[in-house]
Structures are given as structure tokens and as C-alpha cells.
């Protein structure tokens, strides 16, 4: 009886590892989607309404898709430090502290580079920078979706298969 229970637990454990892998792939897609949507909102606020950066960040900390709100909340809160450090530093720190986004190095660098243009240059230059970052994120999103569709089945299969294999050996 105990053997069967142990085998069941092993299958459950490896199966949940597989599911965790799938969740991470899905989360990466939703984070990238959230960043793209929030940058679109940012672009319209900055380029159409010419809203102050503080208001834009405050709005995004409330209205951006949930997975990415923390980034904007940190950047908004960080504005208190303006004068002690530049906006670029505040933005860079907000991106780096947003570990829950699980951004890869290339994505982190891309988002950080936005801080060099935001609030600093004329509307046209900011729109160009936002557009450039968004396009590259869209390309990354395309790859992330492919990765999710391709690797989800693999994660599920290997999770269950390795559990079954281990259980058979144990039994």
C-alpha cells in the first residue's frame, strides 16, 4: 500500500514540475503582452495627451495589465528621488527590481533603454523610442508564443513520463 502511495506522490511531484514549467511559459507570454499593451497606453498618453510622466506612471500602475503593474508602481514611487538621481536611474532600478516579471537579459536591457528617452526628449523622439521597444517586444512575444505552444506538451509529457518511469522502478 505504501509503495503505491509513494509512487503516486512521485508522479504527482514530477507532474507538478511539468505544470510549473508550462505556467512559466504562459506567464512569460502574458508579461510580454502586458508590457506591449502598457507601452501602447504610455505612447498615447505621452504623444497625444502630452501627459506628465508622473501621471502616466500613476495611470499605468492602476490600469496596465496586472502582471506588469508593479513595474510602473515602482517607477512612479521612485520619482520621489528625482533630484538625487536621474529619471534614467529611477527607471532602471524599477525594471531591475521587478523580478516577478522574470525578464530575460535581452528584455531587461530593452526595457531599461527606454529610460534614456522617456520624459527627456520631444514627443516625436519618445514615440520613436516607444515604437522601437514595442516592435522588439512583439518579436519576442512571437517567439515566446511559439516556445509556449511547442514546449508545453514537452513539459507535460516529460513531467508525467519521468514520474511514471520513477514509479515503475520504485515498484
Amino acid at each position, binding site marked *: 500500500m505504501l509503495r503505491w502511495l509513494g509512487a503516486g506522490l512521485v508522479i504527482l511531484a514530477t507532474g507538478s514540475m511539468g505544470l510549473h514549467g508550462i505556467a512559466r511559459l504562459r506567464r512569460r507570454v502574458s508579461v510580454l503582452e502586458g508590457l506591449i499593451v502598457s507601452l501602447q497606453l504610455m505612447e498615447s498618453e505621452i504623444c497625444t495627451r502630452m501627459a506628465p510622466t508622473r501621471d502616466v506612471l500613476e495611470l499605468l500602475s492602476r490600469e496596465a495589465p496586472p502582471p506588469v503593474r508593479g513595474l510602473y508602481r515602482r517607477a512612479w514611487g521612485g520619482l520621489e528621488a528625482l533630484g538625487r538621481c536621474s529619471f534614467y536611474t529611477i527607471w532602471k532600478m524599477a525594471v531591475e527590481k521587478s523580478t516577478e516579471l522574470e525578464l530575460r537579459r535581452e528584455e531587461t536591457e530593452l526595457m531599461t533603454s527606454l529610460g534614456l528617452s522617456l520624459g527627456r526628449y*520631444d514627443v516625436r523622439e519618445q514615440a520613436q523610442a516607444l515604437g522601437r521597444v514595442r516592435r522588439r517586444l512583439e518579436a519576442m512575444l512571437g517567439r515566446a508564443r511559439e516556445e509556449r505552444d511547442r514546449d508545453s506538451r514537452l513539459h507535460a509529457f516529460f513531467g508525467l513520463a519521468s514520474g511514471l518511469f520513477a514509479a515503475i522502478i520504485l515498484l
Partner: protein
Amino acid sequence: MTDTDRQADRYRDAARLLPDTVRRRAFLLEDRGRAAAEELRLRVGQPLSVLLPEGERELGVETVTGRELSLLIELATGASAQSSRRELASGYIACRGGHRVGLCGSVYLENGHMAGFSACTSAAVRIAREKRGIADGLLPGLFRGGQFRSTLICAPPGAGKTTLLRELVRVLASPSRLCPAYRVSLCDERGELAALWDGAPQLDVGERTDILDGCPKGEAVMTVLRAMNPQIVALDEITGPADTAAITQARNCGVALLASAHAGCLDDLRARPLYREMLSGGVFENFIFIKRTGGQREYQLTKGDSELC
């Protein structure tokens, strides 16, 4: 709170616009100096200095860096160049509290006009000042037949035109023994007079003042005439033909005017075609000239007459 305390508070408020490293130097100034300070001046490679009635005085020995000027601009705009675009193209940034940061350096052009700065080399933080009571001695002379008469304040830059104009607006728009409160429409193109922030004036401009902020003066005058039924229209610094055309039209509508202009004396006004037409048309009945003698301001009221023309 005394007037000196209020001025010292305004200095502290203006100093908050400076980056941390420069702010510390600004606070080296003693309280008496803070109350009298008119501007904080930053020049790359030079120490921070404060403009006092007797002249400029350096604060500390550390020199201002280009990075500090960049931080100043970020602070003054709230890292929002997009919102301060029009102001940057005019060479200044209006800030919370009514203070103003004037900039100099290398500019870039769009369609042949200045559009902003590619690099800043100096900045002047002009401290917004409220000086209650400075118009008290002048006020009775601005009335004829119990009515306020159109008045032009003339002085060179930095002499205190805006401060006097704001105080006159405040007094005229509040009930007093001289007059009931007038309905004053204030055309505040550069946001210096009332310093609106989040829809509220940061500086006292009286109880019955309606403020039109950020609109070019010529257009603003016509807008308030149509929309607000003013008894007095107030505006700072008449600088272009559009302003004078709108002023003349307002005068023809029977509205009294309160304005300011860059001019040291009557001869300056007469010499400039822009003002000559207004003078010959008798648009203004009163002229106030501000003179600075030994760090003190002196107000001289002149009545308009045919000699002016």
C-alpha cells in the same frame, strides 16, 4: 507669519527645484538673504550664485556641472519634456509654486524656430514673490470718478513688474474701502501670475479673479471678453502686435486693462511703434514706472495725457 518669513519660505520652496548637491549650497544663505533673494543662478563651471537687490553673490565654491543642470531640468519638468514642450521652446519652465526656471545654452530649431535645448549651460531660477501692500500707496491714484482706469506698469526686466501686477490684481479683485471687488480676468500665458497647479492658483490673485492659463495673450484677451464678462482684464508683458490689437479691442468694449511692458521711461514707450499706437489711442490712462535705487524699488505714477503722444 511675517512678510520676511513668507519670502524665506518661498526661497526654500524654489531651492527644492535644485538637485540635492546644489540645494545644499543654496541653503548656505542666511535667513535675511533668503527673504531678499530674487533669483538663483547656475552656470556650468561657475559656483551657484544668488541674485540679491544689491547684486549677485556666490554660494560655496563648488562649481555647477552639466549633469546638475540636466537634473535641474528633469526636476523642473517632472521628467516630462513632453508637457513642457511649449515652455522649453520659449526658453523657460514654469514650476509649482509660481517659480520659473529660465534656460540658456545650445538650442535646436524646428521650421526655423527655437524648439528646445540640445545642451544647457546656464539657468536662472526666478523666485515667485508675493509682496503684500506694495500697491497700497498707488491704488487711490488709479481711480477716476470712482472707477478703476486702465493702467500700464513699465519697467526693465527683473524690476518687479509681475510682482506689482499680481498685487494689483489681488487688491482689485478683493473688496476694499476703495472699491467693491472687481471681476478680473487674468490672462496668464506663462503661468507666472497665478501659477496654477492642479487647477488651483499657487499665488493669491484675489477672490474674484478668473484665470486663463497658458493661452497666448492676444487670443486669451478675446476669449475672456467673450466668455467671462470681465470688468478688468489683466495681462503680463505686452510683446507683440496681436497683444496690442486685442488690448485695443478690449478697451473699445469698455473693459479696463491692467498690463505691463518692458520700458524704462516714457521715451522708451514712445520710441517703439508697438506702443506708439496704443499711446496715441489713449488706451491707458495711468502709467506706473518702477525704479530701483540702492536695492529699493520706487513706484512712480504718471497720468496719461496728450503729451504722451
